[in-house]
């Protein structure tokens, strides 16, 4: 039945995904049996007792024995499923003590991850395989929800509160997390990449931030940051107005600021806008951009500057 499972559910990425899928498939087959029973009886009766003019019908008002049976049997089934359901739920209610802790901050519309050693990433998280990871999450604005379908975990992320999930990633490779609690315009673009890596590869990434940047020109590297760090949610490349100014043709322009001053869009201003976005807000836009201080490595800032420069 693996073909049916994989048609209906995503790949299994965590240690307990298999167990949850087993419960899912059990309920599915139970439902199919009951559905075939109900609709089968319906269709059979419709055919067998179709209308014949004048045929009398028996006056059957009730049958206590039968009615007790069809009340108690489903009840027993439900009691069984209930215990099975909480058994699975309780397994991932409390994280084991040796789990790696990652702090997650959600805001419109990006995910920020902070590792125990202070390393921070945006919209991507790297996890070592087969080691339990414990996410402690909070939101800076409205409700969000951290949902990784492959891991079968989901939990609302709430302002002024911490919520948590944990799982043990097992499937190497790239998985996607999505926001599953409606949060406005960028809701459906609020994804993060979840990379599950071997221990060696993970440690190498932690040490260097990866060597990916060396394989690209600064402009290309900037474009990758533009897509990964959430810039694309608010800044267009084609001149279209969004939450923030479009980057098309912005380099070298004199921009009018709130309060009437003007500023030249150069290296210094672009850098400042990433690290202290509230300092100089362009007229006609609201000061809604979150700071990227500590979130962008130096090579990433340089890439973004080069990328903006290239957008004529």
């Amino acid at each position, binding site marked *: 039945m693996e073909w049916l499972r994989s048609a209906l559910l995503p790949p299994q990425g965590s240690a307990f995904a298999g167990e949850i899928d087993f419960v899912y498939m059990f309920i599915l087959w139970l439902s199919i049996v009951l559905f075939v029973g109900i609709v089968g009886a319906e269709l059979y009766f419709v055919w067998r007792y179709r209308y014949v003019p004048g045929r009398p019908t028996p006056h059957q008002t009730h049958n206590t024995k039968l009615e007790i049976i069809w009340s108690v049997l489903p009840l027993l089934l439900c009691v069984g499923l209930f215990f099975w359901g909480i058994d699975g*739920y309780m397994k991932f209610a409390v994280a084991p003590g040796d789990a790696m802790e990652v702090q997650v901050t959600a805001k419109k519309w990006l995910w920020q991850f902070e590792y125990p050693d202070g390393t921070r990433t945006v919209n991507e998280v790297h996890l070592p395989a087969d080691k339990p990871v414990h996410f402690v999450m909070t939101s800076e604005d409205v409700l969000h929800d951290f949902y990784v379908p492959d891991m079968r975990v989901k939990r609302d992320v709430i302002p002024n509160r911490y919520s948590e999930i944990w799982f043990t990633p097992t499937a190497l490779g790239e998985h996607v997390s999505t926001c599953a609690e409606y949060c406005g315009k960028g809701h459906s673009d609020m994804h993060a990449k979840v990379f599950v890596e071997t221990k060696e590869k993970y440690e190498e990434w932690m040490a260097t931030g990866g060597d990916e940047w060396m394989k690209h020109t600064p402009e290309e590297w900037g474009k990758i940051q533009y897509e990964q760090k959430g810039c694309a949610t608010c800044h267009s490349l084609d001149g279209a107005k969004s939450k923030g100014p479009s980057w098309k043709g912005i380099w070298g322009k004199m921009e009018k600021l709130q309060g009437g001053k003007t500023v030249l869009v150069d290296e210094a201003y672009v850098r400042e806008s990433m690290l202290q976005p509230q300092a100089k807000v362009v007229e006609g836009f609201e000061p809604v951009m979150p700071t990227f201080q500590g979130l962008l490595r130096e090579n990433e800032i340089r890439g973004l500057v080069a990328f903006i420069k290239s957008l004529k």
Partner: protein
Amino acid sequence: MEHTLTPGAVLGDRPRPEKNYLNETTGIWSWMTTIDHKRIGIMYLCGVSTAFLIGGVFALLVRLALLNPQHTLFGRVWVTAETYNRFFTLHGVVMVFLFIIPSIPASLANFVLPMMLGAKDVAFPRLNLASFYLWVGGAIFGITAMVLGGVDTGWTFYTPYSTTTDGSVGLMVMAAFILGFSSIFTGLNFIATVHKLRAPGMGWFDMPLFVWGIYATALIQILATPVLAITLVLLLLERTYKIGIFDPAYGGDPVLFQHFFWFYSHPAVYIMIVPGMAIISELIPTFSRKTIFGYRAIAYSSVSLALLSFIVWGHHMFVAGESDLANVVFSALTFLVAIPSGVKVFNWLSTMYKGNISFETPMLYALSFLFLFAIGGLTGIFFSTLAVDIHLTDTYFVVAHFHYVMMGSTVIAFFGGIHYWWPKMTGRMYSEKWGAIACALIFVGFNMTFGSQFIMGGQGMPRRYFNYLDKFQPIHAFSTYGSWVLAVGLFMMAINLLVSLKTGKRAPDNPWGGTTMEWESSSPPVFHNFEHQPVLEHEPYDYRHRTVTHV
């Protein structure tokens, strides 16, 4: 006098009265000031049908926006995320508050419930009219909110998004507040009517099961709706005066809002589904020409669903920040809902066993209901099982599940009810052929639209998503094509019914051979419903006494 050739019709052997409730008085003013429950029911039917049309157009726009991931139509991008968010919010708000909550109780039950009891009207006819005008007032607020920029909060108004976003949230919340009172007044009226206005000889267990269902619904309406009113007032206060109740920025708790909201809105789900089940309990015995099986079990199951509806709200919040203990308790309570729901299905099937079943349009809807409600109910088990709920909640799986219950069950039953009582309400028969074709298209279109969404949801497609991963494209497109088939079926149904008003055959008093009291009136009924006070002479659904008698 013409008669249709419907099998089993009991032909009235008396001349049609010249005056009936439709022509007793004339002119628009006579309708606007009427206190006749039948006219108010008809006005409600027009009102909720208009709301269904508006909500349906938003639904089609939602599906159209998801036709392809580029959101293009004829090669041009036509919709943005902001617009899409307004589409699905308005679809939800209109369908829930303006359409489905008042649909069956305020229109069909308003018309037939007093007649089923052998009464001349509801207990408080003026309150009934007041309830209708409150509905109109709520609708005006709602439409104003739509025109003035719309709302993008989702129909659930979750805080703190709803207290911080732009748009006409205040007006829309006022609309829901006013509509709540309309619903309370209707419920109050039905409870008093059922208690006080039953025909001579009619005890509680002689009432038609439709009345039992509407009575159970009315209990929920008057007990749960005030909580919604309180919640919405608190939301407005917070939005206007920045008082910290739900928004953490002012020291409030967003999860508290969800508790308050679902404390009403879960019972509201039963305000929607129990009347639908109540209609099915009428249709199946009538078209099976056999007494209902397990009358008391069905009556009690309606009431127990109403009671259970108050203690399962937490299952909407399994991942929302509820404690693990609360989750476990709500999971257990939620499983209990399966029992009365199952009892009803088994009783309906047993009623059909050894029946004499014919397939007029109302019965086709009842048969569709059994199929769709089975899917809607069984997929509920996935959500009450905690471990599986975590993966499926807030995805298309839940969207599909509740559409199978709300649209596939309640609305299908509503259509069945409209076709069933149409001859009584209008005095006209519609085309059975077109009625059947429309029903088939609606059935196929509905399953295409929402059946496919179970697959997307299981695969991890979250709800309320404007952009989606390319892998979902074929299924999204299929679902959108389904919505077109569904729309064609709905228009066909509407045209068939409207055409019958002009060209339909004259309806006999009892076209289907029903056994409940409303069929003892003429079609359409006279102003006071019956020429003589009907007296209960046998239990409802007793097919050993087929002749309709009058005192």
